[in-house]
């Protein structure tokens, strides 16, 4: 199956009461295939056909506030159009599950992969998980939802547009009963339709309340950090698949490490293997959990490195790219930022090996470099 089908298989097992989505490339297949499941009677929820992404996420917010599981899928301009509702979902503490097929933002219009879309909302209080393969999309959506519901925060499961959403590969799925048992029944504490405990959701707040609510959100993020390891351990015990917040690849005795996310990690690992054969001590650190950011884990992984390069697939115009800035907080040694793959620009294994070799000759500066 491809990355979208992996998402749909997870959705079939989760069987959310409400899905609202406005199909957009490269995640069109998610609402499309889900509607087929609905037609065949394989899921029981409701698919709300909406007129825009703004409405899609608004419908999810409404349904989630009522107290049911909800999900959506989007990408690029679709996510951009949702942006007004993004901080509302997290501010109202609604554990909505969103699949993102990472795609470049317009203009100029482009349908291919980069991370500009989800990176533009990285500070809006959503848990963000970036997946390398379709297998991870399936597993991380179950793990992500489990954490999201415990800390009452929405979660984005990001996969690379086309590179993961449209590539067929083997995916090992789990039995329905076991998945349902892992997720448990969703029982939110506060729901809108409790007539004996009437309440308002999303009220106007004055300065004496607003800031405390935001601090609560940050505390929820910290709780998500704490819950991540126990939740993945629980998942590993049940299903024998391991998903740490950061994945090490030969980093332990590495002198030079590349830090990156999502699908390109595979190619970096291949480059590491080839360099190791040449006697070059390379390593790769893949960030899986991006928000909340695993500072301690990254710091530990990098502490003995002579040099670190961060490969970003998006920009922060006028500043350093997002992943670089986060990793910079964890490492004080020599570091270099590279941006690659914008709008689907190809990157080769040779490009990655060149980047490693430049660290060896201490070729660092304070600029953002581009792999073009």
């Amino acid at each position, binding site marked *: 199956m491809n990355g979208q089908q992996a998402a749909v298989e997870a959705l079939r097992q989760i069987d959310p009461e409400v899905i609202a989505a406005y199909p957009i490339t490269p995640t069109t297949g998610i609402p499309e295939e889900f509607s087929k499941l609905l037609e065949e009677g394989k899921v029981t929820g409701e698919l709300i056909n909406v007129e825009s992404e703004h409405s899609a996420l608004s419908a999810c917010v409404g349904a989630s506030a009522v107290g049911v599981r909800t999900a959506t899928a989007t990408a690029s301009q679709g996510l951009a159009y949702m942006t007004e509702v993004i901080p509302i979902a997290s501010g109202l503490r609604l554990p909505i599950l969103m699949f993102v097929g990472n795609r470049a933002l317009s203009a100029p219009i482009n349908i291919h992969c980069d991370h500009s879309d989800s990176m533009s909302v990285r500070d809006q209080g959503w848990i963000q998980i970036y997946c390398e393969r379709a297998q991870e999309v399936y597993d991380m959506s179950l793990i992500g939802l489990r954490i999201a519901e415990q800390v009452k925060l929405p979660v984005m499961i990001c996969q690379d547009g086309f590179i993961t959403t*449209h590539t*067929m590969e083997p995916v090992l799925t789990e039995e329905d009963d076991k998945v349902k048992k892992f997720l448990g029944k969703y029982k939110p504490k506060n729901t809108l339709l409790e007539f004996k405990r009437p309440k308002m959701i999303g009220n106007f707040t004055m300065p004496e309340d607003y800031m405390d609510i935001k601090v609560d959100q940050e505390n929820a993020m910290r709780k998500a950090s704490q819950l991540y390891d126990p939740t993945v351990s629980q998942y590993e015990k049940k299903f024998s698949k391991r998903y740490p917040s950061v994945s090490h690849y030969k980093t332990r005795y590495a002198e030079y490490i590349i830090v990156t996310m999502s699908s390109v990690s595979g190619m970096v690992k291949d480059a590491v293997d080839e360099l190791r054969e040449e006697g070059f001590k390379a390593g790769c650190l893949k960030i899986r959990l991006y928000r909340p950011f695993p500072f301690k884990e990254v710091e530990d992984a990098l502490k003995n490195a002579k040099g670190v390069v961060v490969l970003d697939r998006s920009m922060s115009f006028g500043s350093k790219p997002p992943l670089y800035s986060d990793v910079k907080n964890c490492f004080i040694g020599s570091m270099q930022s590279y941006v690659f793959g914008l709008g689907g620009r190809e990157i080769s294994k040779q490009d990655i090996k060149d980047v490693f070799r430049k660290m060896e000759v201490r070729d660092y500066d304070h600029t953002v470099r581009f792999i073009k």
Partner: protein
Amino acid sequence: MNMFNLIVKGLGGEGAKTAVEILAKAANKENKFFLAYPEFGPERSGTPINAYFKMDDKLIRDRSPIKIADYILILNKNLERIDSELKKGGTLIINSEIHKKYYYLNAKEISPIPNIAMLGALIRITKILKKESVESVLPEEFLKEFQEGYKMVKNGK
């Protein structure tokens, strides 16, 4: 085994994408690791596209397009400007009435859409997957095309 890598070249509508998806389903039957993906873009019927298929006994990590392939399957003979993409000593199968250098199959005789017949030729020549595995994932109405392609492929050399 070394990683098997294949480029399927065709015009939009000739079924290059479907061809690698069928190989993926058959590879899944044989519990192989694989990646199958086409090039995407502003694709239209009749414009050239590539589809890629990689298969191995271990996890395949590199998800980039194949630049130089061990195997190439050409669904349309007008796309025969590919020598640079074929590894030295690689295998090429072309949809053509006749060819002096490569394996060829006149798929036009079998079906107006060449992909399934050409898959038959590919499996016969390369034996990368069992014939039965591919047949088991094909819709019944396409079995005949596949089997005829399997039978009729010829060596041009």
